[in-house]
């Protein structure tokens, strides 16, 4: 054998010309290696794009919670990278931002479209025992004022019940009613009335 690329002379082994094979192998491996790497990278990038801000990701070890805040510092004694209850409450885009439940005329039935909102508030209270709130019941102006005071209370009680079912303690949820005495919108038509038939969650600081 004269000056080959690879000295694979071993006694007893057949002496073959293996250069084209290795070339092919190296090239092939190179191509395959490139392909695998590309696949892996794409996978991680895709997953990273789907992680909602602030959520924990299972199976990726300790992933820092990522939240976008406009220049706000993560405050509080809960440690670096944790979000305080105050901040959760103040987040205008978060699930706790919705604080008003609306009702049909003469009804205290809570619509299923508020299930998620009330679950978020209930769970927040459950995990933040230092917070409490008042549920304020209100009605539109029609009919007896005293009856409306009672109807407002019934609405507040219905919402309070759902909050405690979702984990809030009884002491964290107070109920009160203003009846028709504190309208959100002044007016004598359904436009105004529909906005006054409500229960408001008022957090106590």
């Amino acid at each position, binding site marked *: 054998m004269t000056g080959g690329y690879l000295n694979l002379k071993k006694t007893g082994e057949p002496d073959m010309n293996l250069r084209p094979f290795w070339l092919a192998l190296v090239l092939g491996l190179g191509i395959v290696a490139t392909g695998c790497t590309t696949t892996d990278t794409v996978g991680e990038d895709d997953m990273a794009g789907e992680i909602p801000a602030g959520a924990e990701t299972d199976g990726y070890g300790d992933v820092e919670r990522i939240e976008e805040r406009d220049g706000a510092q993560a405050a509080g004694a809960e440690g670096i990278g944790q979000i305080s209850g105050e901040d959760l409450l103040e987040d205008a885009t978060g699930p706790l931002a919705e604080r008003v439940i609306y009702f049909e005329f*003469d009804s205290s039935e809570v619509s299923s479209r508020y299930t998620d909102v009330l679950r978020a508030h209930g769970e927040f209270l459950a995990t933040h025992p230092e917070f409490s709130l008042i549920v304020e019941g209100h009605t539109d*102006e*029609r*009919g*007896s*004022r*005293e*009856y409306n*005071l*009672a*109807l407002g*209370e*019934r609405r507040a009680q219905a919402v309070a019940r759902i909050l405690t079912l979702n984990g809030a303690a009884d002491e964290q949820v107070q*109920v*009160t*009613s*203003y*009846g028709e*005495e*504190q309208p959100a919108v*002044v007016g*004598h038509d359904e436009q105004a009335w529909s906005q006054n038939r409500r229960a408001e969650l008022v957090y106590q600081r």
Partner: protein
Amino acid sequence: MRRSIVRTLLCLCLLLPLPAAAQITIEITGGAVGAVPIAVVPFRVAEGTGNLDTDIAEIVRSDLYRTGLFDTLPPSNFIAQPASSEEVRYRNWRALGADYLVVGTVSRGNNGYNVSFELMDVYGARVLASKRYIVPPRALRTTGHTIANEVFRTLTGRPGGFNSRLLYVQEEGTGEDRQFQLIYSEADSRNAQPILTSDEPIMSPAWGPRRERLAYVSFENGRSEIYVQEVRTGERRKVASFEGINSAPAFSPDGRSLAMSLSRKGSPNIVVLDLSSGQTRQITSAGAIDTEPAWSPDGEWIYFTSDRGGSPQIYRVPATGGDVSRVTFEGSYNASPDVSPDGSLLAMVHRGESGGFRIAVQDLETGLVNVLTDGPLDESPTFAPNGAMLAYTRVDGDQTELATVSVHGRANDSLTRFEHEVREPAWSAQ
């Protein structure tokens, strides 16, 4: 001639004083009985009396008109303006169609004014009542109401109660800057003065039996609580601040108890509070909304609003507790009961087929219901002491105003003098 005498006799018979236990016999539906035509002549003001800012005849005319029992003839039709019976030509007044005539004078007195009046029966050509008054300068309006009382009592046998008082809630401003006042005024809403001012809502004013004290709901501490306040001194004390709702106070006719609606964290029930001992007795317990207790004048029954049957209707229960029975059966919504001073009628807010909220009265004996107003947002009926009319609130465009309506439904009058939101009138018993 005969026809007019018969008509006069008919009217007189129906207006005769009735024994206390009898039912009202005047048709509530306003059928056969017509309003009695009466001419109240502008009082002659003697020379040297100066300018009066009070028109006594106009006060008498308005008081009588609002009861729905009198057709008060317009003064512009009066050819002559007599000031005493000697000057009266009865023939002129018969020609005008007047059955009765009131004339009077006002002159300067030593310490104010001298006022006199005479009430005449036009067809009988005789004086039925006459009086003279010595009036302090500020009391001209009161004198006008007193004369109206005399005329009313002479012709119907019942007290006019025109010197009674109204309580109502007034709201000014919007949103966070709203201010609430509890207003005390004469029965025609004049001479209004605030007796309580607050940044938070006030509700449900209620009179004690002799106008000496009142009760109301105040939100000044962030929730509903019931206070009792002395009229003369303004002193007040909190009488109910249980957990939940404390609302709809109503004094018993003897003034010793206060019925109210308390939820105490559950559903609102009717509870009677003994004002001297502080003890409470719960008299309903249906797990529904029970509110707006209203006492019968004999103190035996409490009428109240309840949705135990699905939607608000009026029920009654013995004041000491016992079986609850339903009272209203017409319409999809009946609330805000008020019992007339003679115990025969029940006023309410009623929603019928038209869908609007209107004031109605039900004869408690026959069950007949008469709707008196047009709605669509009428509230808070309260009987006048004479039982002939009700004050209530209604919406006029963007504003809420106080109004009266006669039980016979013919006389509907707006009382508002102010530009603010007013509501929940309570008419004193005297």
